Every structure is written in structure tokens, then in C-alpha cells.
């Protein structure tokens, strides 16, 4: 095998993508005539076909280096396994679909003038899908057909989809990286990108921010925020020495606390200005009211009001899907919070896009803000006294 050419290509890749240097150098090359092109496994070995090295130019090979290491950095094998487990699908065909979807995720920012894109590379457009999304998104949206026919030969190895390959050396093989070492390499690369984001593309910056803080599903976060606000000390169910416990009768002379339950009341203020889409709003509202109901167990404890520049209707919510929301135009959450406080709730939930003035002082109730970030607004001011959950996605 022309190792010199292969290493020259890696050097070229490192010069063009300095932020991936640590990861590229961490790969261990294994000569493997059985591999169609170049493939990686989850232990960060890179299997290379000698014929493939002879066929391609150095810049082409450099592009493949970056492509393969991207699979590993983005943990496509782990995510592929997770997808297979979640959907109960597995097999060579499904793993090939994962490989194609993983390629679609990384190919939008691997190539440029210095690392030319191979003509047969998978791009989201070639699947008829929008760019800038992740593997799981693409997996849900395409099936095999005429569009995917050209990719039937594709094989980036077990590192790209988690499916075993005949040429893999396996965990016991030489020079593999342990889970902890893989994490350490990922961390060093991410740390370098976060520390000096200079020329890294946006996709890599996003990855670096999220790699050890994966975004959690917002429903879970919103739910837990509302739940913890509603169940905090002094709200809802807790122990109190204000009344003797029921067991105290059998223990004369012993003071026991009693469990007292006061269902928390939740007040949801909905921003109905034009900037929040109905679908997002609907799903967030369903989520919050369901939690409110589960906590209180009584319908009259959850109030929903819509708010734009003034507070319009206040409706006790009766049937989940039938809350009259009127409004449009600007928003003023100060009015919304003031109106909510009149009802003396335990918890206030504000669903808004953040394009609003906020009350300057902490309201007299625990506050959770469900924020619908707009793509155009990278950053919106949120009050420090509220727990903010970014909704969407």
C-alpha cells in the first residue's frame, strides 16, 4: 500500500482542518484489501483498501479522511445502535440506510475547494431533503428507491452505522481506543473548537457545544421545570409539623409531622402575538396543561390566559384542545404576569418567543418560561428569576 500517499493526504487534511488534527492523528491505519474504500470501526481504526489509495488523488483522500473521522467524532455508531434499539429495526439494509443518513449529516461541511467533494457523495439534496439536519432526522424521511440506488455500494464501516463488518478487528484487536479514550479525543477536539472557533464551520461549532451536553427533549425539560416548580418546598405535597401526623396517636409523647397535600395551582400565560406558530404553541400548551392536571388532579387548578399587548381572555381550561386564544401583534408579558398574579397561583408558566418586555422584579410565584426561539433571533433576553426552557424541535 502506498502509505506515504495516504499519510500525505492526512497531513493535507490536518492543514485544511486544523481543528480536527487530534482526531485525525488518533486514527490507526490498518491495511485491508477486503474493505471497498476506506472504513472506520468504533475503536478508531481506519481500514484502507490499497487499490482505493492508488485510484484517488491526495486531495480526494484527504476529504475521505475528514469524512471518516467525522463519523467517529459524531458517534454515528452509538447513535445507529440507539436508533436500531428504539425502532426495533436492524439488518444490513437498515444499517446501510444509517450509513447514508450519517453521510448526509456530515457531508454538508466536510468539503470545500481544498478538499473536493467526490461526485458520488451523499448529500441531503440527493435524498430530496433539506440540508443542515442530523442523521436521525434523515432516517425518518427516506426509504430505498431510485434516489438511493447510486449509494448501494456505500460503506464507511461499523464506525458509521454500528453494524459489524467482516474485516473488523473487534475490541480485542490491537491499537483500538477504549470508550474513555474515545471520549477524551472527542473532548479535546470539541474543547479546541469552543476555545478557538475561528474557522470551524457552524455545524462543527454546534457539535462542539452539544457533544457533552446533548440537548434533552424539551417536553421532558418543560415538564420537569413545571413539576419541580409545583412541587417545591411549601407547594403541593410535603411534610409539615403544623398538624400532628396520624401515627402520633400510637406514640404518646412523640411529635410526628403529617403529610399534607395541597394541590398546586398553575397559571399558563400564552403569548399570542404573531411570532409564535400555532403548532408549537399547541403542543407546548397540551404538555403544560397535562402536567398541571396530573399534579393537581383538579381541572379548576389550571388556568390559561392569552396575552398580547393586553390580557385578553382568561379561560379556566375545560377541554384540552378548546382554549380560545385571541391576539396577534405585539406582546407585553408584564401585563400577562400581573394578570396571572391576581389569581394567586403557585406556578406561572409563560409560553413566549421572548420578544417582550419582562417584569423587572421577581413575581410572587415560581415562574417557568417556555421559550420558542425564532431562527432569526440567535439570542433573546430572559429574566434571571425564571427557569427558562427552550421549546421547539
Amino acid at each position, binding site marked *: 500500500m502506498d502509505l*506515504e*500517499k495516504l*499519510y*500525505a*493526504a*492526512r*497531513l*493535507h487534511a*490536518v*492543514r485544511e482542518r486544523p481543528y480536527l*488534527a*487530534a*482526531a485525525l*492523528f*488518533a*486514527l*490507526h*491505519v490498518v491495511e485491508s484489501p477486503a474493505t471497498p474504500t476506506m472504513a472506520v470501526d468504533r475503536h478508531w481504526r481506519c481500514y484502507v483498501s490499497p487499490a482505493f489509495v492508488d485510484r484517488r*488523488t*491526495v*486531495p480526494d483522500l*484527504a476529504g475521505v479522511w475528514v469524512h471518516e473521522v467525522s463519523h467517529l467524532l459524531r458517534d454515528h455508531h452509538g447513535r445507529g445502535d440507539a436508533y436500531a434499539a428504539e425502532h426495533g429495526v436492524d439488518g444490513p439494509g437498515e444499517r446501510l440506510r444509517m450509513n447514508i443518513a450519517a453521510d448526509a449529516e456530515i457531508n454538508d461541511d466536510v468539503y470545500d475547494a481544498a478538499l473536493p467533494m467526490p461526485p458520488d457523495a451523499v448529500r441531503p439534496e440527493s435524498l430530496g431533503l433539506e440540508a443542515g439536519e442530523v442523521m436521525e432526522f434523515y432516517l425518518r424521511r427516506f426509504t430505498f428507491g431510485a434516489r438511493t440506488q447510486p449509494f448501494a455500494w456505500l460503506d464507511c464501516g461499523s464506525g458509521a452505522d454500528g453494524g459489524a463488518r467482516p474485516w473488523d478487528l473487534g475490541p480485542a484487536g490491537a*491499537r483500538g*481506543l*477504549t*470508550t*474513555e*479514550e474515545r*471520549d*477524551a*479525543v472527542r*473532548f*479535546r477536539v470539541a*474543547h479546541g473548537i469552543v476555545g478557538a472557533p475561528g474557522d470551524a464551520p457552524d455545524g462543527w461549532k454546534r457539535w462542539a457545544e452539544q457533544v*457533552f*451536553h*446533548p*440537548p*434533552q427533549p424539551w417536553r*421532558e*425539560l418543560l415538564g*420537569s*421545570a413545571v*413539576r*419541580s416548580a409545583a*412541587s*417545591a*418546598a411549601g407547594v403541593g*405535597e*410535603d*411534610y409539615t409539623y403544623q398538624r400532628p401526623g396520624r401515627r402520633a396517636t400510637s*406514640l404518646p*409523647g*412523640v*411529635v*410526628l*409531622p403529617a*403529610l399534607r397535600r395541597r394541590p398546586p395551582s398553575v397559571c399558563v400565560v400564552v403569548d399570542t402575538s404573531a411570532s409564535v406558530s400555532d403548532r408549537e404553541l399547541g403542543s407546548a400548551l397540551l404538555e403544560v396543561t397535562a402536567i398541571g392536571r396530573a399534579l393537581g388532579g383538579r381541572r379548576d387548578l389550571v388556568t390559561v390566559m392569552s396575552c398580547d399587548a393586553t390580557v385578553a381572555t382568561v379561560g379556566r381550561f375545560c377541554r384540552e384542545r378548546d382554549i380560545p386564544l385571541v391576539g396577534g401583534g405585539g406582546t407585553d408579558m408584564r401585563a400577562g404576569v400581573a394578570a396571572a398574579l391576581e389569581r394567586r397561583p403557585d406556578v406561572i408558566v409563560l409560553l413566549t418567543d421572548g420578544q417582550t418586555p419582562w417584569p423587572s422584579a421577581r413575581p410572587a410565584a415560581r415562574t417557568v418560561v417556555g421559550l420558542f426561539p425564532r431562527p432569526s433571533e440567535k439570542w433573546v433576553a430572559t429574566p434571571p428569576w425564571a*427557569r427558562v*426552557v427552550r421549546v421547539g424541535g
Partner: protein
Amino acid sequence: MRVMTRMRNDDQLGTAAELLALLGDTATEERRDVQLDALTLAVAADLPVLLWGEPGIGKTAGLTQLAADLGLPLTTVIASVHEPSDFAGLPVVGDDPAVRGVPMAPPDWAVRLVEAGRGLLFLDELSTAPPAVQAALLRLVLERRVGALTLPPGVRIVAAANPRGSAADGWELSPPLANRFVHLRWTHDAAVVVRGLGGVWPRAVLPRLDRARLPEAVAYARRAVQAFLTARPGLVHRLPGADQARGGAWPSPRSWDMALRLIAFATAAGTSREVLSMLVRGTVGDGPGLELLAGLDRLDLPGPETLLADPAGAPLPERGDLRQAVLDSVISAVRDRPTRERWDAAWALLARAAETGPPDLVVVPATTLAALRREEWDVPALIDRLAGTVSLSRRAVAA
């Protein structure tokens, strides 16, 4: 007649008991299991552990096994069905409370633990305990006090909790309580479960501490944590802000102290880096933990001065990325104190690196080193050994 039926029934039950005994007759084997190793090391280091795992994954079974292996009596207390007074002590009103005060009587399990002098206290379902119970548990976990009793040093504390997603009615763990635990994610390994159902479960082995290495281990751990926090003072104390980190580990002086203890134990026991990584990340959080481990990696790499002193014999790491980091550190050492001898030694080292590993990672250090040349210094003869690297670099430039 009725007597006959009863006899037959008794027999049936006896046979059932025999069958149950056969089913319960399982063997254990020593098997390297990272999470079990991490748990035993933390228990040995006398730090409270919190196991996070989905319901039904065998946390309790694992604990029972651990207690049996370590020969400690197991006391299980299900936190979510207790009242705060069960942990803070029951106030017992005596004859003259104004003069004598009101003593807080401990519950029976605590009394038994103190009598035994040793044991494993397992607090189950911590995340579903109401806030007031969690607050009462703080004192138990931190000060090891239940009411007026102090648990003896031979008692180890392990707790279990269900992650937020799967807890039926989970309260979040409050940050003060979360900060006192080493958090371990407990997952099941299908292979281990299958083998266990076949009758053989893995066995925990207490880490074998090497008496000769104790002082060295303490010095190493102190140096590592000190060096790291000197460089990153912002991480000494950082309350969890992001939503996903709530209820998990976060860095504070207390948890750094715990991390230091774990590093010392892992060093003295010679445990794998993987186990240590799991423990440190579970003590101070993922980000700070990974950074600290990256610092440990740097401590473990051969220092630039060692390599310059013996360029032909000093060990070079095998892994490409570590090797590159070492070469970079050597070049910056030469740049800081450029002398002819050091410059030559660096060339010798680069030549060796080019011959013993992938040559592409030698190119950048070689270019930098060449730029450090003074006029009166001749190019060393061994530069020929880098010829392959030069042609490789040319091919990459021509690309």
C-alpha cells in the same frame, strides 16, 4: 381422607421449595465489569454513591451481590416511603423538655447498624422522595448522623435513583444533595445478564491497594487536582445552570475533594483509566471531569525535558494524537530555551518518531524546529532520516 390431601399439598410445597432452591443456586465469577469496579472503588474510598438506572435493571440485585462479596450486612431503606423524622430522628418529649431538651430518637435500622459497627446502607428510590425527606437525608449522607446517633466509619452508603425520564413522579434531586454523591450511571450489559440467567453472575472484588504506593498516590492526586484548578479557577465552584445538569454531579470544593480521593485510590489500586473516568465524571460532572482527565493524560505523558535528555531511549507514546502532543511540547521547550544541544536532541527525537510511527505527524513539528535554527548551527547529519517525511510533505503541498 382430608389428612391425605394435606400431606400431598405439603409435599407439593416442599418440592416447590426444592425447585426454588435449585433456581437460586447461582455461582459467581470474577469478571471485569467497569461499573462494578467503579462502584467497589467508590465504596472502598468511603464516598457515598448514587446509582442512576432505569427501573428493573438490577440495581438492588447488584447491591445485594456487592454486600455479599464484601461481607457487609445490607440494610435497605426505601427513601420514598419514609418521613423526614425517620432520618432526622423522632422527637421524643421527655419529663422536662425545657431543661433537658427533646432528644431525637433514631429508627431501629440505624441502631442495628451502629451495633453491628459495619454494613452497607442502601437508600433506594431517592429521586422519588419528597423534598423534605431529601433535606433530612442530607444530614445522613454528609454527617452520617441519624437523630442523635453517628454511623460508625465501617458503614458505607449507596443510594439509587431513577432518571427523570422514567421516574413515575420524580422530584428533582436538589443540587446540595446531588453534590454529595458520586453519580454512576447503571446500565445492564446484555451479555452479563444472559450469562447470569444461565447461573453465573459477575463478582465484585475489592480493589487491592498497594501499600508501597500510598504516599505516591496521594502526591499524584494532589498534584493533578492542584495543577488543574490553578489553570481553571473558574471550575472550583460552578452551580449547575443548564437544565440537563440539574440533579447530577457538579463541581464544588467538596466534590473536588472527593475527586482527589478517588484519584488517589485509583492510583494506589492501579485501576484502569476507564473506571477512574467514570468516577471522576460522576463526581464533578462531565465537562470538568473530562478536562481533569485530559490534564492527567498530560501528567502521564513523558515530559519534554525527559525526552530531550534521552532522545534515543525515552518512551514515545504509540497513539498518534498523544505522540503529536508530546512532540509539540518538546518543540515549545526548545523554543523557550534554544541551545545547540537541545536543538540537536529534538531532531534526533523527530527522526525516531518518523521511523517508528506515522510520518505525517512529524511534519509540522519539523517545520517549526527548522525555523528555530540559528545561523551558526549546522544542520545535523541525521536530517537524512527525515527525507521520507519531507517528500510526504511535498506531496501534501502539491495537493
